């Protein structure tokens, strides 16, 4: 299924997202009274979108079936939810008198950006791992399906260290790596190294013989982060302003 979705990687996903957003924007602008737009803007559509997302979450929650998020059914549910939120945002982001409804806009547009980055950007995302000993270099890494992927740079482990606590558990580990023979940089847990646009190197494990690195490509993460920050700001306004009187 992962291979099927990778067909939609950049630029096709960007094109499809633009067609989807542009199409619904045209519908909103020119055919506001059409049955499709009226349905998508109805309370029933909002409630059904939330219920379908919650239903999908309950399925994954009870079964642990994470591959469900790669199914066509889940993609349809997400697309439907995004369409509802997109049109609701277009309709409601400002009042008829022109005043912008910031709380509404931040929450809905934030959700749209964050979930949209996950949905449209997933074909461009990848995760690979590589184990390196001191002085070893890598030009490729292992994908989660067991295959190998090419790194567009050379990753070299210069040095690493690990400290254990009194109970023998690791309390601190870090690695010093060099990219394309450049100056060494430190990588720690919670402090990945941004190697290039949308790509980070994480230190996931340390043993006596070397370190395990995780290479994550998520070029759409900036949209996701922007959406998350907007949602947090909207949530803050939800707290300050409370329920609509």
């Amino acid at each position, binding site marked *: 299924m992962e291979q099927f979705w990778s067909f939609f990687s950049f630029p096709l996903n960007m094109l499809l997202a633009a067609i989807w957003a542009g199409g619904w924007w045209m519908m909103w602008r020119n055919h506001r009274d059409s049955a499709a737009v009226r349905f998508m803007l109805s309370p029933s559509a909002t409630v059904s979108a939330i219920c379908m997302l919650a239903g999908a979450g309950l399925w994954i929650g009870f079964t642990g079936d994470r591959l469900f998020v790669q199914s066509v059914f889940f993609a349809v549910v997400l697309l439907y939810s995004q369409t509802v939120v997109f049109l609701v945002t277009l309709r409601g982001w400002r009042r008829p008198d022109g005043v912008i409804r910031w709380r509404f806009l931040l929450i809905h547009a934030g959700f749209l950006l964050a979930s949209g980055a996950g949905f449209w950007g997933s074909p461009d995302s990848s995760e690979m791992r590589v184990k390196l000993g001191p002085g070893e270099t890598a030009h490729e890494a292992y994908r989660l399906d067991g295959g190998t992927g090419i790194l567009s740079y050379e990753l070299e482990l210069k040095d690493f260290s690990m400290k254990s606590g009194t109970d023998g558990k690791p309390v601190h580990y870090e690695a010093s790596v060099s990219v394309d023979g450049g100056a060494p940089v430190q990588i720690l847990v919670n402090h*990945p190294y941004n190697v290039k646009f949308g790509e980070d190197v994480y230190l996931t494990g340390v043993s006596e013989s070397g370190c395990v690195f995780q290479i994550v490509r998520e070029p759409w993460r900036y949209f996701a982060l922007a959406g998350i920050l907007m949602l947090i700001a909207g*949530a803050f306004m939800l707290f300050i302003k409370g329920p*609509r009187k």
Partner: protein
Amino acid sequence: MNSIMPYIAVVMAVIGSVSAWAGWRRTAVSFSVLASVTLAWMICSKWILSGIPPLRTMGDTRMWYSFFAGIAGLFTYLRWRYKWILSFSTVLSTVFILLVALNPEKAGATLVPALQSPWFIPHVTVYMFSYSLLGCAFLIGLVGLFRKSSDLLPSADTLIYIGTAFLTFGMLSGAIWAKAAWGHFWSWDPKETWALVTWLMYLLYIHLRLYRRGSDRLLYILLIFAFACLQMCWWGINFLPSAQESVHVY
């Protein structure tokens, strides 16, 4: 000293809630505040003695929940003057603090690297605070269902809005932290999935209220169901087979 603190807090909270029933407002508020201060003292002393924030074990989260449940109950009592809310929040708080007192958990002496993040404290405490507010909304749902009246819905709305705001921050701060620690904002871990389901349940309540859809009975049942999802997210997932794959089991 810390071993008797939970019992002192429970006694104070019980005096506070009985006073609320009796209509002695000042006594109710005073003893409820004292109960919260006792729990705060317990949390602080544990923090200072270990040098590590007490946020790592299920017992730690229960302790925070008891603390915040008392505060949320007091807030609801002060704001809407429901004399029953302090009794209910006391029961909620007592159950969890007694679980801590009767089943003490030993946390390791070290903080594992993944938890060494500036998000660690705000993520967990904000979640626990939202859980306590939503716990009060759950109590309102129970009472409302029993009384068959819509009078309690406006107060539930306020609690849901504030609780959902904090729940949103808790969930999204977790997503930002997860990106830094594990590489992805969202990986459909059982804990994340149940957090999303809980969040969606409260969103459903908010939208049903905004659209004026759904009977009072349905809304009260939704408050109860949403709180059940919240409990699944908090500790219920530990009993699911999928929890074996979770990085959030503690």
